[in-house]
């Protein structure tokens, strides 16, 4: 199927961005409202901090606004936006490492060993007891954090944005085959980390029961 600017113009967000290009600031505000939570969510799970995620989200929108005059619809707007997000997150991580705020260098392959140890300790302690919702979320977040940067981004885009392999490939400048391999390795890592908490075919925690108790 041929794709081109006319194809992408069917995307409502692309049309909004074309209005921004023509100077329509209200259209830009709509785009900000449509995407702000999605970007903060992705960035929060990448960087681990709400304030940093919000700052980086604003940085992404600033880059979008600055690029408005040269914008051409060569892809869906969301693909372009998340490509910028990926770059902003990567630059942020690199800057942090340079300032020695991160103790481990980013690796292109392999998990984060510190997070692996944390999960191993937790799984040794809690194979049978009930885990509350907050702790479960921490465990799942630790499993995500044990992935390397590219795996994490691919998983977040696939899980939270329901992006196809092709869209993820366009966002991360990879081939679909590379995305397939990346996601397979990531899912395998997640399986190893989370399997002790899934147990014998059943979750060790009844999140519905815990949420009912919280409501009470």
């Amino acid at each position: 199927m041929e794709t081109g600017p006319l194809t992408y113009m069917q995307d409502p967000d692309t049309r909004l961005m074309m209005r921004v290009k023509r100077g329509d600031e209200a259209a830009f505000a709509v785009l900000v409202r449509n995407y702000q939570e999605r970007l903060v969510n992705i960035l929060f799970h990448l960087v681990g901090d709400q304030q940093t995620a919000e700052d980086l989200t604003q940085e992404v929108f600033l880059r979008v606004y600055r690029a408005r005059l040269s914008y051409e619809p060569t892809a869906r707007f969301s693909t372009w936006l998340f490509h910028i997000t990926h770059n902003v997150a990567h630059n942020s991580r690199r800057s942090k490492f340079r300032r020695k705020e991160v103790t481990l260098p980013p690796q292109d392959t392999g998990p984060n060993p510190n997070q692996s140890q944390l999960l191993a300790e937790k799984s040794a302690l809690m194979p049978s007891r009930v885990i509350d919702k907050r702790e479960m979320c921490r465990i799942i977040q630790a499993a995500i954090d044990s992935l390397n940067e590219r795996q994490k981004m691919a998983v977040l885009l696939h899980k939270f944005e329901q992006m196809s392999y092709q869209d993820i490939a366009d966002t991360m400048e990879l081939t679909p085959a590379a995305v397939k391999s990346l996601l397979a390795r990531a899912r395998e890592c997640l399986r190893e980390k989370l399997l002790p908490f899934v147990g014998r075919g059943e979750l060790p925690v009844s999140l519905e029961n815990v949420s009912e108790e919280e409501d009470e």
Partner: protein
Amino acid sequence: MAKERIARLTNELREDLVAYLDGELDENNIQAVEKTLANNNVVRHDLEQLSRTYDLLDFLPKAEVSQEFTAKTMTMVTVRASQVWPSENEWKTGFRRGFLLLVWCAVLSASAYAGFHITTRIVKTDADILVDDLPVIEKLDQLQEVENLKFLEKLEQSDLFDLPRSSTP
């Protein structure tokens, strides 16, 4: 035991299983995976584990933003975008990049300079060879008459010509 079962799956099959779960396989590969699933308990078990552990990610909290976030973002963007001068961070980034570029240029220039001088010392040109051989070339006609160097040495050592003895040949 679990690790032994995992080790039996190839990387290709593992990738296909994940792509199958994600609905990203073409028809031929779907049929191949489904045939494998029908005949292999280990693969079925792995598929279920991959699916269940991935579903746990649905429990991750969704980050929320305040109601003022849109307004703050719009204000920040319009102010920063209208700035004539880059921000402090942008200055620092630009300066760092410029400095790195200068350092690289200096390193490359120094390497080229050192390489040129080392090469000229080691590799002799035709002109260098001629200069080294000049004493021989100047007396080539006479030397060609000698034919036998040992005879020449004996003549020098004899007193026939009453010549001062030289240490150099």
